[in-house]
């Protein structure tokens, strides 16, 4: 006996109820459960769909789908950082390396101005504000998508939200660090300034890549990651 369309839909809902939120992860689990249910029916033809489903789910152990979700998230994280790195590397090759050098020199000289730390703190504050607005907007969009029960892929969600979490936290940490230690850039020796400017330049590039480059390329990246993306979204 094969599962009907409605039963497949029910399995998607079932995974959703068990904290699997992303379509790509759901799909694999649904196919697994469906295969197993069909196998269970061969042995116990009289079992109801719900009972067979629960029997199959039990085989995942007491943590249910948690291990699967965790492994998937780890895998996708790795992929996400690989993508960021791919686009970040571009900034260290001609012609973009010129811009990178300019940013670096900009920080390097700016730090040598007396009281530059206040300038820096002010810039950070402005950036944090922009971040907060962006996060708020994305959360709202995300909620709307969820309401419409749109199929959201894991990487899709990461391209949208993770970056904001990451950059926001980095900025706030940087702000606190400088503020609390009463850092005085202009009194530091030149090697420290080179190091600090390099790190900040690097952070700027990652910020730009994750916030502007990746969302622009999202469609492309998703199709590259998910062979089923086009099929599911009817592109």
């Amino acid at each position: 006996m094969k599962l009907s369309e409605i039963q497949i839909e029910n399995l998607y809902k079932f995974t959703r109820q068990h904290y699997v939120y992303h379509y790509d992860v759901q799909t694999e689990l649904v196919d697994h459960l469906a295969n197993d249910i069909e196998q269970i029916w061969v042995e116990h033809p009289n079992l109801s769909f719900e009972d067979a489903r629960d029997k199959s789910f039990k085989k995942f152990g007491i943590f249910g789908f948690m291990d699967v979700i965790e492994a998937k998230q780890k895998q996708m994280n790795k992929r996400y950082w690989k993508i960021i790195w791919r686009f970040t590397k571009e900034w260290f090759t001609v012609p973009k390396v010129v811009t990178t050098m300019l940013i670096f020199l900009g920080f390097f000289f700016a730090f040598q101005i007396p009281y530059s730390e206040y300038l820096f703190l002010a810039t950070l504050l402005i950036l944090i504000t922009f971040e907060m607005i962006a996060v708020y907007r994305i959360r709202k969009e995300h909620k709307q998508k969820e309401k419409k029960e749109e199929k959201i892929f894991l990487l899709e969600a990461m391209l949208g939200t993770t970056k904001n979490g990451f950059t926001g936290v980095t900025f706030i940490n940087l702000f606190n660090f400088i503020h609390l230690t009463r850092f005085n850039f202009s009194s530091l020796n030149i090697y420290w300034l080179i190091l600090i400017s390099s790190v900040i330049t690097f952070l700027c590039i990652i910020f730009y890549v994750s916030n502007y480059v990746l969302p622009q390329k999202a469609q492309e990246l998703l199709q590259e990651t998910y062979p089923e993306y086009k099929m599911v979204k009817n592109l």
Partner: protein
Amino acid sequence: MYQEHTKLLDTISIKKSKSLEVTGKQLHISTIKRLHINKMGNQKLYKGSLQTIILKLLETNDKMYGYEITQKVKELTKGELKITEGALYPALHKLEADGLLDVEVAKVGNRLRKYYKLTENGTKETANKLEEMQEFLKTMQHLVNPKFSLE
């Protein structure tokens, strides 16, 4: 006999007595414990080899989906090894993250199915892992069965 003993552990709680009377036979607790640990230990022993098992299967079968892998392993080992769902998918995802596996998705009936297959790197790594496994088996053989090694 083996199954009988392990079943016993589920049903009888062993208290202070050092041995048990089972259908007229004296069975020492240590024997029962050993048998029980054996059964549990088996699965643990296999656990470290899960990746190698998956890679080997994909080498011989070109492309497979998750459920197919569990069934195939059950069939090949005549039920001795059952890969649990909670272990299989994390292992597959890890291998995918390491660039050893590639995925393909096809519509089968009314649902989507995700197939895994070896990448070029994966094929190389499979050869490495199998070699490692052979080494491991040989070493274990020497350790566990020294007589065997003298031959």
